[in-house]
């Protein structure tokens, strides 16, 4: 196993290597690095940085940096997960509507939690979480599946093979399930923020249809364990 410093060396010297010719290309030169927007990262004194962070800092001093996208800002209210979710909720590029729905959802969550807080007896008041951001993150985390299924065709028959998922894929699946659930399984007259806040609160407590869907997927993967050796990657 190479030492951590050696791993950092590899990362730095890496030229852009197209493994497969990318269909998606970027207007930026491959040597451009992602911007770091939070002010806390820049206020850390030099001694507290680990080896890796020091190397990362040295690299950033030499390489050009991409421009920060319009959804990202250093304010406390900008959260990359919330932006991602808003973009997934957006239809036909109507970001204004998606963002307002998101803020109404967070407001609805806050209201419901506050109601519960004020009705609860003294000893239970600490257990009730009122921060809508914390609830959002925890709910999505609870919805993330650990293992996924992939269709592999062998000898004419298609099998559902259990397959590990990357972090990005897990997050995407959780958000996708949440949005499809809220769009389809609701009464015609319920508004999206209301339904979303309901689902998020249920997911936060590990209940609700999305958690059920996740458990169903896990059970399917468990039952198809025998085919796991079909996976070659």
């Amino acid at each position, binding site marked *: 196993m190479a030492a951590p410093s050696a791993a950092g060396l*590899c990362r*730095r010297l890496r030229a852009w290597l197209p493994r497969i010719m990318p269909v998606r290309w970027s207007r930026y030169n491959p040597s451009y690095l992602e911007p770091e927007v939070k002010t806390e990262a820049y206020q850390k004194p030099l001694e507290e940085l680990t080896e890796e962070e020091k190397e990362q800092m040295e690299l950033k*001093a030499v390489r050009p940096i991409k421009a920060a996208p319009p959804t990202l800002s250093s304010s406390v209210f900008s959260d990359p997960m919330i932006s991602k979710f808003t973009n997934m909720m957006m239809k036909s590029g109507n970001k204004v509507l998606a963002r307002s729905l998101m803020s109404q959802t967070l407001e609805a969550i806050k209201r419901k939690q506050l109601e519960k807080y004020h009705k609860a007896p003294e000893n239970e008041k600490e257990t009730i979480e009122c921060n809508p951001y914390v609830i959002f993150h925890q709910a999505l985390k609870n919805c993330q599946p650990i293992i996924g299924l992939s269709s592999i065709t062998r000898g004419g028959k298609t099998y559902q093979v259990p397959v590990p998922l990357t972090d990005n894929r897990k997050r995407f699946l959780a958000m996708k399930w949440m949005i499809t659930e809220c769009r389809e399984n609701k009464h015609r007259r319920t508004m999206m923020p209301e339904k979303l806040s309901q689902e998020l609160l249920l997911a936060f407590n590990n209940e609700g249809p999305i958690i059920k869907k996740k458990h169903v997927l896990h059970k399917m993967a468990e039952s198809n364990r025998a085919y796991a050796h079909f996976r070659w990657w």
Partner: protein
Amino acid sequence: MGGRSAAVMAAAVGRVLRLCRRWGAGPGAQTLRLICTTTAVQRKNAGASGPEKYTEAFIKKQIEEFNLGKRHLANMMGEDPETFTQEDIDRAIAYLFPSGLFDKQARPLMKHPTEVFPEQRKIQWGEDGRPFHFLFYTGKQSYYSLMHETYEKLLNVQKHQDELIAQDLPLQKEKRNLAGSRWLTKIELEEMLVEKMSDDDYSRFIRLLEKLVALPCADLEEKYIQKFSKEVPAQLQKVLIEPLQYDERGVAFSTGEGRRKTASATAVVYDNGTGKITVNGIDILHYFPVLQDREQLLFPFQFLGRIGKHDMVCTVSGGGRSAQAGAIRLASAKALRSFVTEKEVEFMRQAGLLTVDPRVKERKKPGQEGPRRKFTWKKR
């Protein structure tokens, strides 16, 4: 039929005899001068990228002609033939043969033949058809021989490491200055090997090099590694930060310009302010009703912690709502550079506030409905 084959045979024999004569003539010449091709050599082989287009004699003649022409040109222009550089040649040609053609490569050109004629490989096999290189039949002899060499170096370094461990000596861990160097690009590597390679091959080679560099005793093969790495100028272009200007009231101000998509903006940031921002004479609350745009405008100030301390007056035109916000953000970040220490300017750059966003609308392609969307596929 019989007569024709005999004639063909005679011709083939004749060609071979001619070749043999030529081969015997040259002192220890390994490469053949193929003026006429035999059926034997007309076989398609992946090693050479085609029959030799320019023979060595031809290139030598071109070089002599070029040097002679250079001296004539220098005489014509009244310059000293000894100290006539390539830039002088370009200027002289542009003066003597002025051309209005748009394509720069279509204009008259006088360059050294090595730059004009692409480097190509000599014939890789002997007179008997037997190739010189042992990896010729892989199709990519230079690439595979390079991989073999690099792997040999890797094994060497590992052996040296094992020896040091066996003797309980500490492994050398001198850090190379890696931030300032990069590997050769695929094109540069192709030029070096005079052989085409695929992207996969290139990435395999780079991974092997990285593996070699990652070992602690890699300094052993420093020279070999340096052949494939290039210096990257560590100092990015030092942008000149304009000093603060002062207006009639004695208040310090600074201007900045920014662009995003088709929008362009100019921002004037005043000191000792209350945080009032005006765009095209209108307050930002009325000009940008969307929260996201206002967030973008305040981003540079919030990042530096100077929210209530500056006033801003901007003008913006073109683009849409988000593009105008992005343009003003860039303009204000550029203006704020004059108010702030160098370290904070570096932090702003690393936060992506000072980079021009190069993303623009992608063009529509012919045969497609949009930049990516294809026309509806109909089976019949």
